[in-house]
């Protein structure tokens, strides 16, 4: 009757090996024109922080109007985040954001790679690098760990580090960031506990 217990224990061990806990996941699978605020994430409580109006088009998120941020509560401020971006035209991701005016933003603009602190509505470049070429579609990887934020353009060998990230250090909402242009294409948004 209890013969299955050893097998379950073994399964638990296998799950531990599989990787860190997924806190937020969205592949943006929904009908075109569905607002992200009306969309159910694959994993996570939903898109609720920030005033950006983002919607789904062709299985990706795109920005339509309103504020620049839209984020979801991961329940953890220290996270690994990754997201696929359709091109390199000044939109990216944000971590630890409380509203449109406060958070940590990473994006690529052509060949320029930036980490911004947006603090009380003021933009501060805290780190920058120049890529070897315009990456086009790319994946941003970002790790927020205490006062340290590390951002990487996957596969390029280019990363940014800022070690004094005091703003919103315990804020648990992370998400999408757009600049002024309508559009952008976000996909495969994933936030996990630190590995």
């Amino acid at each position: 009757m209890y013969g299955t217990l050893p097998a379950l224990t073994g399964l638990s061990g296998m799950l531990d090996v599989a990787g860190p806990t997924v806190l937020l996941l969205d592949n943006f699978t929904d009908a075109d024109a569905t607002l992200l605020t009306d969309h159910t994430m694959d994993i996570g409580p939903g898109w609720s922080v920030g005033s950006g109006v983002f919607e789904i088009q062709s299985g990706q998120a795109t920005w339509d109007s309103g504020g620049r941020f839209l984020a979801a509560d991961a329940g953890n401020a220290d996270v690994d985040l990754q997201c696929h971006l359709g091109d390199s035209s000044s939109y990216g991701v944000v971590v630890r954001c409380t509203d449109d005016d406060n958070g940590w933003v990473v994006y690529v603009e052509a060949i320029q790679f930036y980490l911004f602190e947006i603090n009380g509505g003021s933009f501060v470049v805290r780190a920058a690098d120049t890529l070897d070429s315009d990456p086009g579609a790319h994946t941003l990887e970002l790790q927020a760990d205490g006062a340290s934020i590390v951002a990487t353009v996957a596969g390029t060998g280019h990363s940014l580090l800022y070690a004094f990230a005091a703003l919103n250090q315990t804020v648990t909402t992370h998400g999408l960031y757009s600049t002024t242009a309508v559009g952008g294409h976000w996909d495969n948004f994933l936030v996990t506990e630190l590995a």
Partner: protein
Amino acid sequence: MTQAIVQSPWIGMGSRQNPYRPQLHDDFPGLKWSDATGLPVAQIAQGGAVGNIQVTCTDAVLNAIKAHPRYSGHVVVMV
């Protein structure tokens, strides 16, 4: 590539189009750098702030920074 700490003034107005940034960023476009001081935004906004910037660059670029009148004598190479 060489790493160094460079003292740089901060410039900008804090807008997205004209963000606060080290003067070094404009003087040496394309430079890989990160803020190594973490000055509070309020201090930068007051104007006249100077902070340490960690740069990663070729020896040629580092020599150009050392030779620039704004940074001459304000560069420490990291070993």
